[in-house]
């Protein structure tokens, strides 16, 4: 079974990634790893309580994505680290990920652009880099899933 990594970042970017995933991977073929990375530049200062709160805040987003991808086998992960790109790389290596799906933000979102550039350059897996909501010609979507995605 293929392992596909989907980064949960921002709703407008997640929608594109989720739509792409539904249209290109069958739920029987893949195991999904949903990952969000929380930047903690002062990791040695952050208390356990702060970390718990941060994780709590991400749960509604995870649940929304999981409700759309209810047919898929999903594992959820919250990573906390000073360098999100490096955390992602460690995760990819440790979990034997096959494919990585990423959606590009607009050009002014510098930190996310740096993150994508790092993964493209350093990961030895197949990476799908998608432009935001711009691949309608690429795949024909399932109407029911599209409704769900619009709702999300």
């Amino acid at each position, binding site marked *: 079974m293929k392992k596909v990594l989907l980064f949960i970042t921002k709703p407008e970017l997640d929608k594109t990634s989720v739509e792409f995933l539904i249209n290109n991977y069958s739920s029987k073929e893949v195991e999904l790893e949903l990952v969000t990375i929380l930047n903690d530049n002062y990791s040695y200062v952050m208390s356990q309580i702060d970390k718990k709160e941060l994780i709590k805040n991400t749960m509604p987003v995870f649940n929304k994505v999981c409700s759309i991808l209810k047919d898929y086998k999903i594992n959820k992960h919250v990573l906390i680290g000073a360098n999100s790109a490096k955390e992602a790389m460690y995760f990819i290596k440790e979990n034997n990920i096959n494919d990585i799906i990423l959606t590009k933000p607009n050009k002014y979102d510098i930190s996310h*652009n740096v993150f994508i550039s790092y993964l*493209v350059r*350093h*990961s030895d897996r197949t990476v799908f880099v998608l*432009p935001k909501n711009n691949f309608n*010609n*690429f795949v024909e979507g399932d109407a029911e899933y599209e409704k769900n995605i619009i709702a999300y």
Partner: protein
Amino acid sequence: MKKILLPIDGTNKSLESCKYIVENFNTDNTKIYVLNVNEDFYHGFSNTGESEKANKNVLKAIDNTDNELKNFDVEKTVVTSKSAKEEIVSFAFENNIDTIVMARATKEGIKKISGSVSKYVSKFAHCPVIILP
């Protein structure tokens, strides 16, 4: 009809992208654009014919894609330009390409870690980019 852009530089690594296309795309509704960009750093100043020689070598490599992609509708283009990465992005935009399939880094040794072309293309292309390891 899906339009797939396959940028190649003649190396074995770049030709491996053909296998990915064969395995993952349907032959009936896919058109493949094979693009080679011959980087001419002194574009406009050089008359030595070096670029023509390089083109001939790459054309041989492009012919090798024929066997792999024999069931697809293939269009081959060879371009000389100052910058391969900019040429790939503009070619994709001008031809309304739906997906770009390319290898992460085609160079050997220390240059293997660079992957600057794939990084640039993934950042600036208007369409989905599939970067193969």
